[in-house]
């Protein structure tokens, strides 16, 4: 019974996460959804999701105001096989406060001590489609 409920919740989360990546191709959508589901298991939920492509000479920046005492995970997922992706978090003074680089998925978490502006950048080590999400706990 418990397993059935977990499977149902996972299925609903899968549809929900898939919907968040509406703009992505089917393959990318599945991959991004699976990566985000992994974090959902750790108590995170999707607050924002985007899908796009990047070359190695580009960086994509996301900025916005964030609430104090809420834990955020900025997640980048590279769709191309064996591709390193890097996510950085900056405060309003452009000071780097968190960074993660990894193959396929990078996660940079932060819990702001004050409410204010933060920015995230994503760049890749190989041209690839990618998705980016801001998850909260």
């Amino acid at each position, binding site marked *: 019974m418990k397993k059935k409920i977990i499977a149902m919740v996972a299925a*609903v989360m899968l549809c929900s996460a898939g919907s968040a990546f509406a703009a992505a191709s089917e393959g990318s959508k599945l991959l991004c959804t699976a990566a985000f589901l992994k974090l959902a298991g750790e108590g995170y939920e999707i607050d924002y999701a985007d899908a796009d492509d990047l070359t190695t000479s580009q960086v994509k*920046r996301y900025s916005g*105001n964030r*609430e104090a005492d*809420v834990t955020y995970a900025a997640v980048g997922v590279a769709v191309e096989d064996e591709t390193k992706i890097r996510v950085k978090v900056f405060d309003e003074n452009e000071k780097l406060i968190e960074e993660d680089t990894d193959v396929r998925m990078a996660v940079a978490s932060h819990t702001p001590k004050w*409410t*204010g502006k933060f920015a995230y950048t994503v760049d890749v080590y190989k041209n690839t489609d990618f998705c980016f999400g801001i998850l909260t706990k």
Partner: protein
Amino acid sequence: MRLSRIAAVVAVGLMFAGTAIGADAPKQEKKTVVVPPSSRVLVKGATKSAGAKRLAKGVKAASAKAYGFTTGVSEEKGSFKLGILLADLETTLLAGDKDKSLKAVDTLAEGLTALGAPTPLVISVVNIKAAITGGTDLKAVSAASMPVLRPFLDDFVKKEGKTAYQKLGEWTESTRLALLASQQQKSNLAGNFLNGVNMASYFLEEMKGLNLPQGATDGLTSLAALEKTKITGAEVKAALKALAAIQETMS
């Protein structure tokens, strides 16, 4: 032989250097996307300092009729109102206020129907109502249902091209509730909202050319001027007046 070895070493060295340069060389910024905070995050943050119950006191338990959903509403205004309802529902669920949650979820379902939302989306809202009516703990409903509902709702509004209106509704309502709660408890919550998460300038820029009603533009301009660290009681009142003006002109 020796020369070819040296050449090989140099080539490998160059390759590594190339990788390092490739990773750290200045990159061209493709595009900056501004991500306004969702009402879920705004409400969660405000709840931490003001408490959900205090926050929920400011929620108006308005019917679908009062929102104009029963008599027909434009996609712009409808999306704005969906944003307000999302913020209200998030707040009242966290506060455990069953009556106000039911009112918000009912109006949300009627609003989505009036705006021509796909049936599965409306059904998922109706299922939230069933969970509330069935006595499920409202915090559990908030934790399990809202993160699932939101991407579908966002997706629907995005397809209609009205995301900015929904976000404006979410932001004005979350800010209004936070300012009202702040007045009751005399905390710095108002300052945090008007300084830290003041999105008025963003909306003015984002919605330029969308022919926002004058009252909404004026309200946003007044709010943008209040983005500062020290906020007086009179300024909180002025901010609430501006928020009311925006909500009124968008209704």
